[in-house]
């Protein structure tokens, strides 16, 4: 079994000068304990560890030379080039005071840093005017110590609000036992935890009690294709929750980091049921987070290419008119707005068009009057917003189809 040697800071005694590279190093040392450890997780790629220790220094003299402070580690992946050493304060009468300048020279100063060969170690040469207890801070980047974020959301039965809990999970597989350490993600509360080796610690970072959500239903033929062989013209209707990361919508304290979101719903009997999960993408302040939960199988949408006409312009250049008919049946108890995404670039390529970039298009006169169409995802990605009423309460009444037509003219195509 591998023996883990923690990162150590040693004060080497009685050695006047740094060893030459090829020399064996014989150390007689005092080992100052960590006084404070901070694990900074605000950078998503690198974890910064800052530790403070009290180092007893001897007064530098011509005979003894300067103090040498040795920092070494094994079985951990510390980025050697990232290690910073900073003298912070001197203990005086039981408290620490800042380092002063005396006669134009600082009481304590780092003279140089040496790197012994074939060792994970650094040796700082430190000048001290007088013997003192010096508080120093050693900072370094370390691998295999990181964090992940996860969310647990509980929707109310009507799906209007979420109770959103954001967790941070610290994973320490760095090989280092940090003991009591401060943990900070760059936002939210700072935690004080015992961070041992090979441990995961899951902590509640924030609880957002009432986050308004918008439930959306989306149909995208080119993204999902036919629903099944029995319904070759229907496709999947996807359900999403949309959250806005701002104060008005119960969030807005900090950007939302990427992480897995598991969504539950109150079942109306004091319990919960699992609705689905999705990866949340990074969501800056004021931006929207969209979470895919699953399929809405009570909303059926079929898309039929009702007709098409080609109008030759000259040579192989042509315009293509297309009539698309959408039939929406809502078997739910509630009315829904279905967002139908029509990928016009993909539609143009179905007709063999090779025009580069987005297709040029215009709306035809046969498009259903009053049909709400937006292009927030791109000019060639019109989204039709179709209201479908709830299924009738009357047990004998049937669900009526909502039928809309999108008539488009794709222009200046060639094969």
């Amino acid at each position: 079994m591998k023996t883990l040697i923690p990162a150590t800071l040693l004060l080497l005694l009685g050695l006047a000068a740094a060893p030459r590279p090829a020399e064996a190093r014989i150390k007689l040392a005092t080992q100052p304990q960590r006084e404070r450890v901070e694990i900074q997780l605000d950078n998503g790629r690198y974890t910064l560890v800052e530790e403070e220790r009290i180092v007893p220094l001897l007064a530098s003299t011509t005979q003894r030379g300067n103090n040498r402070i040795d920092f070494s580690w094994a079985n951990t992946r510390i980025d050697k080039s990232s290690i910073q050493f900073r003298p912070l304060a001197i203990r005086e009468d039981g408290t620490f005071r800042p380092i002063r300048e005396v006669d134009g020279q600082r009481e304590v100063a780092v003279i140089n840093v040496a790197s012994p060969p074939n060792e994970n170690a650094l040796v700082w040469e430190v000048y001290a005017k007088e013997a003192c207890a010096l508080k120093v801070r050693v900072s370094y980047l370390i691998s295999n110590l990181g964090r992940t974020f996860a969310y647990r959301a509980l929707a109310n039965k009507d799906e209007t609000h979420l109770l959103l809990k954001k967790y941070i999970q610290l994973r320490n597989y760095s090989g280092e036992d940090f003991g009591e350490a401060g943990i900070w993600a760059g936002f939210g509360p700072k935690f004080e935890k015992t961070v041992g080796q090979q441990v995961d610690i899951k902590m509640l970072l924030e609880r957002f009690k009432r986050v308004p959500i918008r439930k959306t239903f989306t149909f995208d033929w080119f993204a999902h294709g036919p629903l099944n062989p029995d319904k070759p013209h229907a496709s999947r209707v996807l359900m999403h929750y949309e959250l806005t990361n701002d104060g008005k919508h119960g969030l807005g304290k900090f950007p939302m980091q990427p992480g897995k979101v598991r969504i539950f719903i109150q079942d109306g009997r004091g319990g919960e049921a699992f609705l689905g999960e999705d990866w949340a993408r990074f969501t800056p302040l004021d931006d929207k987070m969209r979470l895919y939960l699953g399929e809405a199988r009570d909303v059926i949408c079929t898309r039929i290419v009702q007709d098409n006409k080609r109008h030759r312009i000259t040579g192989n250049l042509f315009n293509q008119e297309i009539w698309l008919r959408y039939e929406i049946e809502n078997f739910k108890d509630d009315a829904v707005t279905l967002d139908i995404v029509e990928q016009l670039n993909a539609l143009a390529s179905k007709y063999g068009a090779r025009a580069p970039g987005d297709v040029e298009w215009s709306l035809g006169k046969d498009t259903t009057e009053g049909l709400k169409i937006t292009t927030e995802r791109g000019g060639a990605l019109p989204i039709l917003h179709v209201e479908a009423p709830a299924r009738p309460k009357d047990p004998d009444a049937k669900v009526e189809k909502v039928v809309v037509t999108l008539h488009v003219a794709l222009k200046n195509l060639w094969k």
Partner: protein
Amino acid sequence: MPRTLILLALIPLLAGTALAENVDLVTLPNREGVQLTIYNSEDITFVKEKRYVTVKRGANKLQFSWANTLIDPSSVEFRPLEHADEVDIADTVFPGQKPQFLIWNIDSAFEGQLLVEVSYFTSGLTWQMDYVGVTNPEEEQMDFRGHVRVFNNSGEEYEDAQIRLIVGNINLVEKIAQLARRKGIPMPKPGSPMMQRLQRDASKAAFDLAAAREGAARATGAKAIVKEGISEYFMFTVEGTETIKNGWSKRMQAIKSETAKFEIVYRMRAHQYGPRPVRFFIWRNDKEHELGESPMPDGKIRIFRENGKDGLSYLGEQTVRYVPVKAPIEVNVGTDDLVVYETRRDKTERFNFTFHMGRVVGWDTRTAWIDTIRNYRSKPIRFELRRRWPGHIEYESEVTTTSFDYRTIEAVFTVGPRDTFLYPATVLQHEGKNARQNRIELK
């Protein structure tokens, strides 16, 4: 044989106790209730168990371990059901040396017995729906039943399992069985005998939990299935508790309609169902058909007919896909030898030739087609014809015909008993250079 072990234990808090010690002194609180919510679209079961634990004021440690199971560690949640505002979970610690193990550090302002809920996802339990329809000899109405079947392959017998079943397609970004394999736990590969055994063990563990529920009501006779909608899904809750015997699957009736009237339709769609017309039984999942309480989950349906001689005839089977409330139920019972469809060309003309360099590069073809439908049954039948015509087509028929889409015509008619119906059509096809469109134009 590896044994499944799920333990919730209170660890006496001793100063200086290391998290990862191998010797634990624990107290094991009894379970007060367990609920299994099984999903059919994914291999996932949501387990919730309630227990009483005794906490003291200040810091408490609660240990939860799940040896030899397929529990997703990231899903394990702890929730106080009482004194929630006085009990705070400081953190959850997963010691690396004990992979299937965690400790909740709990700060409590309350001292005494506390009802808590532990929930998690596990893998290895499944359920399915199946349907049986028996028509009367005249094929006008049917006795239709749907059954829920919960599978227990654990090899042992379980009693008093409390079960909820979710109908719907949820989104999972990672499989639960894979999550259970994380953290260096030596888990077998998916589908391997070892994994199957683990799944059986997980199934057994979950049913064990449910069986351990104290005071569970034992319903007698047929169990009711309570149905309710949750978001886009539907939840079937099995009344009381269930006993599922060793190696058996338990089948419970969930849907029943004794006299559902249905319609028979013949559909000829060569591009969808093949070269022969197929027979559909069509009715609705609504009150009129003694249904409509809930959607019908995906499942296999088998159709029989009372043969009038105190026996049944097997008509066919099909996998029914999810049917919402009030939506039509369409069951394809296959081809019928007593209904015959034939199509033939009657007359062909070619004209309007286009030449290039003295060679024919474009022409029009006018073809007279006659489709014949012969009904050898003693009842009239409704016949739906859809036929695809690729290319640039001008189409004409004396029978009412509509365009279903840009390349498919549709005609619906009735064929009398022991009668023949002729469906004539004239198809003008522009070919070669004469083809300037890809659509049917109805004349």
